[in-house]
């Protein structure tokens, strides 16, 4: 007998109205269709858009399906049954992905803490990036070493260090190291070392 996964089942049952016959499946789906119809009226994810992604926690690489409503708001996140590694399963952390997206504690503004201050101040991206760029330039220019004490070309700055990050995507990692190395950083480290 052909094995129908829950996801296949939902896909198929979703098109039954368009005239799927029993012969296409090879067995009687009537009870299941009734159940599916019931689900469709009850499920939160009715009419939602499903986007596949991969869990952000450990390195097993489990599949997650994120459901968003018409406004693009995340309304559900659950295991991706099509994924060959996880086959729909998630651990407690992966199963809580919804709360990463829908969470009042998320940082939503750029914050700045001035020297000796005891509080954060909300600032704009423009202001913060301008100031960070100026800081980078100041630190780099002050510490830049073109030649070491042996007279060898080293073209580096020992004035800035950076740690990060295994939480970045591959493309972002590549871009990040390119940015840092163009500035002359050698103190570049991240989670893989600890």
């Amino acid at each position, binding site marked *: 007998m052909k094995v129908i996964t829950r996801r296949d089942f939902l896909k198929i049952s979703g098109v039954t109205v368009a005239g799927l016959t029993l012969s296409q499946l090879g067995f009687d789906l009537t009870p299941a269709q009734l159940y599916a119809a019931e689900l469709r009226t009850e499920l939160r994810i009715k009419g939602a858009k499903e*986007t*596949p*992604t991969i869990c*952000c926690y*450990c*390195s*097993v*690489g489990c599949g997650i399906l994120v459901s968003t409503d018409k406004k*693009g708001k*995340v309304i559900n996140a659950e295991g991706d049954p*099509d994924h*060959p590694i*996880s086959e729909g*399963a998630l651990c407690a*952390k*992966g199963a809580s992905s919804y709360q*990463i*997206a829908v969470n009042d*504690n*998320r940082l*939503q503004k750029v*914050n700045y*803490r001035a020297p000796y201050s*005891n*509080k954060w101040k909300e600032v704009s991206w423009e202001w*913060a990036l301008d100031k960070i*760029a100026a*800081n980078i*330039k100041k*630190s780099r220019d002050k510490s830049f070493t073109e030649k070491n004490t042996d007279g*060898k*070309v080293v*073209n580096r700055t020992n*004035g*800035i*260090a*950076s*740690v*990060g*990050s*295994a*939480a970045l*995507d591959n*493309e*972002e*990692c*590549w871009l990040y*190291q390119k940015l*840092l190395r*163009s500035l*002359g*950083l*050698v103190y*570049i*480290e*991240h*989670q*893989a*070392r*600890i």
Partner: protein
Amino acid sequence: MGSNVAENHPVSFKWIEAARAKGAIFIHVDPRFTRTSAKADIFARLRSGTDIAFLGGMIKYILDNNLYDEFYVKNYTNASYIVSPKYGFDDGLFSGYNPSKRSYDQSMWAIEKDENGIPKQDMTLQNERCAFQLLKKHYSRYTLEKVTAITGTPQEDLEKVYKVYGSTGKPDKAGTELYAMGWTQHTVGVQNIRAMSIIQSLLGNMGVAGGGINALRGESNVQGSTDQGLLFHIVPGYLPTPRAQWAKLEDYNKTTPSTKDTRSVNWWKNRPKYVASLLKSFYGDKAAKNNDFCYEWLPKLEPTQDASWLNLFDEMYKGTFTGFFAWGMNPACSSANAGKVRQALGKLDWMVNVNLFDNETGSFWKGPDIDPTKIKTEVFQLPCAAFLEKEGSISNSGRWMQWRWKATNPPGDAMPDGEIMNDLFKKVQALYKKEKGVFPDPILNLKWDYETNGKFDIHKVAKEINGYFLEDIPEHPVDKKAYKKGTLVPSFVFLLDDGRTSCGNWIYSASYTEAGNMAARRKKTDPTGLGLYPEWSWAWPVNRRIIYNRASVDLEGKPRDANRQLLKWDAENKKWVGDIPDGPAPPMGTQGVYPFIMKPDGVASIFGPGLKDGPFPEHYEPLECPIEKNLMSGQRINPAVKIFEGGLDTFATCDPRYPFVCTTYRVTEHWQTGVLTRWLPWLTEAEPQMFCEMSQELATLRGISNGDRVLVETSRGKVEAVAIATLRLKPFVIGGQTIHQIGIPWHFGWLHPKDGGDSANLLTPTIGDPNTMIPESKAFMANVTKITKQPTKKVKKA
């Protein structure tokens, strides 16, 4: 060993269960009885930090009982290779040791070569200087009695494990090892893994389906971030970071691994092509053959400089840096000796902290016992997008590069990290253009064109990493075909060292080609039936799912395990069938090549002369340990570790103030420092606070009951926790004395949730493995006492 897979990589555990259902035997060796142990067929307990003794005993058992795979050992490892007579080992020290530098002269351990530069061999394995005989001699000292005395593991448990695991030395059997930080976070971390790689090589378990040594990594993209070179010593694709002594590209290329043995592929011989292509991806048109592809612009390390994590924070503590990025990281909780890190952050002029949530690093200036009015550090906290709010790829522990699609927009002003980098670099470049500055060339001339219609485009970066042809190539030397300028390269095989190709990371070349984005594939065919799924996502290199797979076949290319046919040679059509082979060369017996193509000699290392602390793993005690003398030799700790001393770097061995062995670990519901998970109500409800597990015997000894508040202390710091007196931990008898072990999770921090407790890393020492400098967080000495007074609020009002 070295992992708790059921709790820390739970979904992978379903495959262990599936294997058990098919008759596999599952062994768990750990200081603590965990949920993994509960599911194991055999559980053996060992004291933290004694894995090499345990594994050394297994090596001896395999050799004594002739359980090794003789064909594999002779043909696919260096067991038959003759080692220099300068090699020696005496009372815990290998030859070539310099006590004042705490380092070895590794040239003393070389493999002998004949007049043509080919390693000398004795295929009978009888020569007393062949690696096999040296191995036998070295591990003859690891008797069951000795191992039990060191590890605390009962002899019958040792024998049970050795016998079962040793049974995988037959070609139709496979054994695999799953390790995690339980192995890496030791002063002998690399040698823990080396010991297992010797066992796997003896048993013929490398490069076969169901074999290998698998790192269960703790971050979703820590494989990818390492591949992309986010470490001081490597640039993308594991190319060494340039150093001052390699002034010209020619000098750098002179360090390319080489061999005179024509049967060794030595794939690294292609390195100059990858370096030239990388430099083109950095500097574009400015990089030309006649200017060394701007190699000079890349920053260079001092000849022997180690700029790794512990040294980085040591330098920060000394005031070396004025600026610092903590991008998607929380070192105020994740670093060993975190108290030192928190002090170090106050010595900066400025810090940029990019994260999803507020964290102990960004807010260090208002942390416990810190007065903000005395902290000069200017802090920028930038909000970034979460994984489901952006597009891009990550690479899992099996090297599968999986694409993630964007489901929703980030909240408020939060931006994807890639966009932040793009905007920031443009600002820096504009500033240098406007104001000039010191040596602006590498900044002004950096190739930075990752936008489409004025918007950052991650696909452009993905293509940059894959690489493309920079000129029309009428007849490519590899396949004699023509390639147009701008065409994405089909794979790294097509990269050139003359500047006609660009490639950001050679190992990811073939991931985004003219055929499309390979990481985004979702087809579930499995032609080998081994669960390789070659059309689901993409695996580096060149979609090879099991590396060194040529070791799974015999000299004629026939699978050695008929039931698990990973690869086989189709002699008629002269090609390999199955997984992507490690190169197209025919089988070894038909003028083919050795299987371990990334090793200069082409074979697995039974004798490993490349590590800083010796060619064979040897048991040493952790930096902080409960016994005065190493029962194995006169060297108590690893002779090659760097000792950090003074200031906040203290340690205490056999100190009655810190009598218990302590280890850190994780729980299912939290991740790393808890920087994400502590902010999710569902998870904090399940695991709300710091705790300390101890045996019931120790609890009784210290008058502690389940649920009591306790203070865990080391010479570096203290942390409050809730006591769990449990059967999961048991006292050990080591060298005749009772030794207690305690355990604490490292997911907490003072910022959130309130009263959740602070970081376990306030307790851990600044000490690292000599090869990797990964800190020893899995074995250190601590004290635990009951807190009798009411809890005091430690968190200050900001």
